[in-house]
């Protein structure tokens, strides 16, 4: 009888252990969810300093051959409507703490040097797509408006009401583009026509579509961006 009894005992212990672990799961499923905001706020500064440390502001991210482009993989995400902007009437405002604020037409922008890159676009949801973006380097636009020495952040306003803010180093990265072509075709309205942000060094939600205004500032405002204000991390570096 003994061995059977000790077997039963073991089983009871096993049940105790499994009870312990499912209690953990239940705690996770209900109680701990309430703390996600606190957990995020507590660890975001640490994670952000690691991300800023990892970012090499001058070094381009390796690109892919044209054969690697995945034309169907880029999913469409919007928070609201899809603006239909007239490219003829469209003006991109670049202003803020600068000496030479500008309003540029698409024709003005297309006269500037064209940069093409084939990069991996990574969405916060977990999917990724290899995409070719063609456009102007944001650093060229920034140089045109002659920012003041204290500028540290860049705000992007979109025609649909979306907004974003970036650290200056990431904005000046050589592969941070104001893109007006995707896979060598003019941008579609769904992808942000006539012009959008594109970069391999930030998550997709940082890459605003339908950008109408770029504002250079020395401090972050109360609003740090549409998704950031709702709890997503601000730096979102890759």
């Amino acid at each position, binding site marked *: 009888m003994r061995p059977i009894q000790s077997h039963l005992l*073991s089983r009871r212990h096993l049940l105790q252990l499994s009870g312990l672990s499912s209690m953990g799961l239940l705690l996770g499923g209900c109680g701990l969810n309430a703390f996600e905001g606190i957990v995020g706020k507590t660890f975001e500064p640490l994670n952000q300093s690691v*991300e800023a440390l990892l*970012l090499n502001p001058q070094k381009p991210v390796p690109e892919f051959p044209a054969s690697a482009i995945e034309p169907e993989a880029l999913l469409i995400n919007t928070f609201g409507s899809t603006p239909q902007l007239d490219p003829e009437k469209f003006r991109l405002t670049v202003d803020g703490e600068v000496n030479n604020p500008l309003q540029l037409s698409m024709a003005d922008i297309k006269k500037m040097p064209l940069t093409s890159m084939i990069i991996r676009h990574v969405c916060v949801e977990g*999917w990724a797509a290899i995409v070719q973006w063609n456009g102007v380097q944001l650093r060229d636009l920034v140089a045109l408006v002659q920012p003041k020495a204290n500028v540290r952040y860049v705000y992007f306003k979109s025609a649909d009401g979306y907004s974003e803010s970036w650290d200056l180093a990431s904005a000046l990265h050589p592969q941070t583009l104001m893109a007006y072509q995707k896979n060598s075709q003019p941008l579609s309205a769904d992808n942000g026509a006539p012009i959008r942000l594109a970069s391999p060094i930030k998550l997709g939600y940082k890459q605003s579509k339908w950008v109408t205004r770029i504002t250079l500032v020395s401090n972050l405002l109360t609003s740090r961006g549409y998704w950031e204000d709702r*709890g997503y991390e601000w730096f979102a570096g890759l």
Partner: protein
Amino acid sequence: MTSNPAKNSQARRPIVSQAILAKIFHWLNIISLLLMITSGLQIYNANPVFGGRGGWQFPPLFLLGGWLAGGRHWHFAAMWLFGINLLWYGLYIFITRRWQKRFVSSKDLKALQKGQNPKRKAYAWHRLIYTVIIPVLLLAILSGFGMYKPAQFHWIVDMFGDWQALRVVHFITVPIVILFAIAHSLLALKVGGSRLIESMLW
């Protein structure tokens, strides 16, 4: 340890005790893995690795964070606990040479191949299983790091082939860890009874 079911076996049982650092490691590892897995499944649900949008999602019971951003907050907080715990434990087992004494050895492998003693074989299996989980945990960190910073660590993504392969590998570590936890508990029970399990936890 005792094979004869003697009436007074309680008195003759050797005292099983574990190093306090091994206990601390076990507890922190259990807690951090529970947080990593539940928050990881929350992130998974935003775009299932298998099936993408519209793919099967894990039920809320197994999730942590409440929504994608909450899952990410927990995941990228608990990663520090999980990673640092594994790091100091790694240093500890190398410095104390526990790595040579307490983990699988060529003797265990020989026992598994040629051994006749079922107790010796169970012991060898036990050591083998808890040794091979360590590279799996390191793989979870490597693949996770590749997904967290794919631009700065593009070579990690390249190592796994492509993005989907990286996601699959990172996800597969979850069922492996769960199966490991079950096998590890059962083998510990077989090798040392409930006393062995309790000695590692309390």
